[in-house]
């Protein structure tokens, strides 16, 4: 029995300042949510209290917005959030804040807010960020939204708080794509391609297959995913539109067809094909279907990733013996080795959004870990310490890396801050979760 299903995700558009494409919870189906467990925290985190939001008028509370914001900020590792039980009071307006009470507790910042019913239906989320020591408001917003979009609005609030206090754009309202595998019977598995919020909530299955699915990768504008499916009894590269669910096989043929990577312009894919007898990197133009071979070496060349400026790619090659990372200009030319003096196994590089670092799978005596290489200094730091870590992917603001790791029940997702100080697990109750790909900013 062989089956494959793709699903369309219904779209709704928020009406106001933060107009966005959204996915409704209605199609979540049997998808299981990922639960997050913070493993290691950061001592220097900024103390903040996100006070439970007041509800005004007949606005019932379909969602605890403050709780979502609190969880987002804690998950970043940059904030020490106060639990509501410890709060001296729960002000919803600036004038209701008793600053002395909060100063005594060492609380540097407050987030206060309200949830209001909009006259024409829907909701308005109103919130303020307050500097406790200066006794003044740093930021205030009113965000119109709908019941279906409240969770996303909460993530937007987190993004705004994060950016105001840390000076760096927040990535809480982004999404992740990943593969799940559920064993149905000996020798029979169900593979799913899912998309969820960056905190693991609201998962949607966008493709289901009894044959392996691999290598999901986001188009830079977040509208499409490319991935590898074995539904034709061999690897083939597919493209799927996230709004319509429409999918198209774009590259198939003899040998392996794998490792798609979108160029920053969204027009080209770097792919690994072995149709000429050996795995090489090719550039495929989505507009005209042109295919150009970029590498030419009897070794394995695979796992391309584009530099953010779109001018070069890095890839894995075992031309020097074991797998190492190489870089080549997209116009051709000689490939140069990037990873030196960092062991015998470095593979599947992913650029940080600023192009200065690479996250790689680094193998040593203790297993396979996620490491980060600084391209200017060639320094490298091993961030994770489990036995089988793989598939690193940077958050679009570069603050975190999501990856797959071996948990007690199979592969789970985990995230680490880019400095390795904060670690957390995202796990489902059953089955494997792997190959996370962090999506772009949603704007």
């Amino acid at each position: 029995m062989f089956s494959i299903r793709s699903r369309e995700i219904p779209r709704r558009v928020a009406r106001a300042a933060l107009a966005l494409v959204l996915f409704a919870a209605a199609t979540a189906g049997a998808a299981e949510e990922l639960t997050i467990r913070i493993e290691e925290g950061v001592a220097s985190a900024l103390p903040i209290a996100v006070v439970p939001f007041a509800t005004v008028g007949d606005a019932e509370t379909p969602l605890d917005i403050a709780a979502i914001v609190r969880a987002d900020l804690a998950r970043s590792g940059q904030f020490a959030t106060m639990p509501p039980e410890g709060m001296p009071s729960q002000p919803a307006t600036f004038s209701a804040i008793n600053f002395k009470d909060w100063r005594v507790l060492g609380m540097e910042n407050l987030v206060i807010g309200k949830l209001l019913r909009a006259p024409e239906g829907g909701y308005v989320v109103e919130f303020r960020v307050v500097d406790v020591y200066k006794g003044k408001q740093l930021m205030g917003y009113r965000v119109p939204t709908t019941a279906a979009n409240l969770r996303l609005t909460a993530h937007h609030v987190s993004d705004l708080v994060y950016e105001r206090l840390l000076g760096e754009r927040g990535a809480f309202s982004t999404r992740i794509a990943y593969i799940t595998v559920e064993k149905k019977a000996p020798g029979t598995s169900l593979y799913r391609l899912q998309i969820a919020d960056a905190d693991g909530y609201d998962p949607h299955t966008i493709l289901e297959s009894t044959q392996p699915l691999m290598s999901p990768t986001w188009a830079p504008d977040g509208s499409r995913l490319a991935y590898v499916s074995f539904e034709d009894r061999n690897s083939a590269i597919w493209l799927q539109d996230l709004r319509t669910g429409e999918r198209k096989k774009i590259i198939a043929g003899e040998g392996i067809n794998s490792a798609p990577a979108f160029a920053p312009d969204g027009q080209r894919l770097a792919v690994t094909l072995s149709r000429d007898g050996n795995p090489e990197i090719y550039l495929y133009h989505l507009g005209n279907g042109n295919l150009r071979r970029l590498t030419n070496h009897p070794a394995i060349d695979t796992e391309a990733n584009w530099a953010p400026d779109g001018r070069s790619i890095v890839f894995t090659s075992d031309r020097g013996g074991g797998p190492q990372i190489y870089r080549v200009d997209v116009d051709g030319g000689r490939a140069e080795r990037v990873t030196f003096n960092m062991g015998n196994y470095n593979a599947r590089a992913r650029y940080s959004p600023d192009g200065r670092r690479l996250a790689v799978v680094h193998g040593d005596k203790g297993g396979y870990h996620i490491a980060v290489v600084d391209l200017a200094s060639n320094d490298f730091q091993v961030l994770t310490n489990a036995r089988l870590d793989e598939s690193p992917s940077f958050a679009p603001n570069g603050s975190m890396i999501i990856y797959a790791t071996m948990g007690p029940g199979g592969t789970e997702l985990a995230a680490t801050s880019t400095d390795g100080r904060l670690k957390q697990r995202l796990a489902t109750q059953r089955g494997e979760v792997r190959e996370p790909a962090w999506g772009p900013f949603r704007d």
Partner: protein
Amino acid sequence: MKGAGQKLLVVLLAALLVTGCSSRSTRSDDAQGRATVEDRSMGQTGADADSGAQSSALPGGTDLSASALNDPASPLAVRIIYFDYDSANIRSDSSDTLAAHAAFLAANPTLSVTLEGHADERGSREYNLALGERRALAVRRQLVLLGASAGQVRSVSYGEERPAVDGHDDESYSLNRRVELVY
């Protein structure tokens, strides 16, 4: 086990995929917005495939007749070739098995075999997909060298996506680094 029947199935499968493709676009408009492709060849090839293989009259000596594929005592009953870590070298303990399969294919030119290359779970998945292919191609070269014709041998890599066993220890890894011969 499947023999000539496999070819029919491949044709059947191709037909199913074609119809699947054409129905996909129409079905994507259905109420749930899903596209569905199904075929039922996988795992349900039992009776038909076997009878198909047996009904083909094929040349060759007794040892190499098509039905030898169904003989558990035949060297052809061994259908898995194992590999060392990060290696695609054919081990010496596999040579007899591969020689038997090559002779069988040479004696049965209408039959074909698919070599499914696999890797253990360690390291990156896409690199492992390439490793699985390298193993399948090493087996293919050996079979062709020993008498099979190139057109009889197809290779496909599954990388680490379809482990034979689920464990995360050396024993499991050694069972997962393999090429499976599927007739």
